[in-house]
């Protein structure tokens, strides 16, 4: 009994921090909603501007891709006439991606395609086939799964339209390195349309295979010239893959930022409704208090 009375006394005494304002919980929620609304609006501005930038870059990248594809077509002409007698067992995989993120599933699609190709049972390749990665994002993804196969990695490509100098540098380093392979597979994203892309693998015939092929033997090509051709066609193929992957990345980034802006807009609408409803509820409560207070006088 004494305990109950002392509890009641404590409950009626004002708390040392002072009385909380009447609509404390509502206002705190309102403040939170307001802050969230502001931050989502800022995010929407950023994603919208990123989408604009990606659209303009996409136009330029697509033009570069059209002209860059000719290099790849020239290659495939040669390789069509020099078919491989025996399928290559030890393939060098060149994975083409880039350093920047916020572009949807570009990097993971290429990494997954590489993993599928290495684990493929229909056309088996050596499980310790070397992999060379262009681009930091795929490098991180592949180093988690296939770290033992990684031979070399390249970055700082893809900030702007890739140049043939980039491709020639990569090809030069590949040829100079003492990595052994029978054939080369370049894994990149093919540009299907402005909203779609899919991973593709393009084969590049190595120098030895070219020498062995029937067409080259019939023409009695000199070894020096064949070596030059193999190196140059590798640079061609890498260049074609680089420009196409760059165009895919810009289109994927534009689509991703477009989706993000739409989602942000939906969130803004929802939060604005919530905020207005909360604000009106607070006003109504205050009115009720005032009116009951006035009616009591």
């Amino acid at each position, binding site marked *: 009994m004494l305990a109950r009375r002392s509890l009641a006394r404590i409950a009626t005494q004002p708390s040392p921090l002072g009385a909380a304002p009447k609509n404390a919980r509502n206002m705190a929620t309102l403040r939170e909603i307001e802050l969230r609304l502001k931050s989502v609006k800022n995010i929407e501005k950023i994603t919208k501007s990123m989408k604009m930038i990606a659209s303009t870059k996409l136009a330029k990248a697509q033009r570069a891709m059209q002209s860059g594809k000719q290099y790849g077509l020239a290659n495939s002409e040669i390789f069509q006439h020099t078919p491989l007698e025996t399928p290559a067992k030890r393939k060098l995989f060149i994975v083409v991606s880039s350093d920047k993120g916020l572009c949807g599933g570009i990097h993971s699609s290429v990494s997954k395609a590489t993993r599928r190709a290495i684990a493929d049972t229909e056309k088996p390749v050596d499980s310790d086939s070397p992999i060379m990665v262009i681009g930091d994002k795929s490098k991180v993804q592949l*180093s988690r799964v296939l*770290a*033992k196969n*990684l*031979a*070399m*990695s*390249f*970055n*700082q*490509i893809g*900030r702007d339209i890739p*140049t*043939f*100098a*980039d491709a*020639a*540098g*990569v*090809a*030069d*380093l590949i*040829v*100079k*390195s003492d990595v052994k392979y029978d054939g080369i597979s370049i894994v990149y994203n093919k540009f299907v349309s402005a909203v779609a892309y899919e991973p593709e693998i393009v084969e590049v015939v190595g120098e030895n295979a070219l020498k062995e092929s029937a067409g080259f033997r019939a023409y009695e090509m000199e070894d*020096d010239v064949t*070596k*030059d051709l193999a*190196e*140059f066609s590798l*640079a061609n193929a890498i260049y074609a893959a680089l420009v196409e992957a760059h165009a895919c990345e810009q289109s994927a980034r534009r689509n991703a930022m477009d989706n993000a802006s739409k989602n942000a807009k939906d969130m803004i609408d929802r939060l604005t409704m919530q905020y207005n409803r909360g604000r009106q509820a607070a006003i109504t409560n205050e009115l009720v208090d005032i009116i009951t207070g006035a009616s009591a006088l």
Partner: protein
Amino acid sequence: MSSATWRNFFTYNKYAQITARAVRQSLKESERVVAEKRGTTALKYQQWENGVGGPQVLLNSEEGKK
């Protein structure tokens, strides 16, 4: 020059890039500026051993220190 000795020192791609750079530098000023953009590369590479990456090296570090 019937016997080219450059093959002992670098690959065909390096040879092509050197000749391309010579051509670009010989162009008229306005054309040269446009062509230089086509020849820029900031490539960096790193060797990997047993799942561990080595240091990242700038490809043009020797030429860049002109």
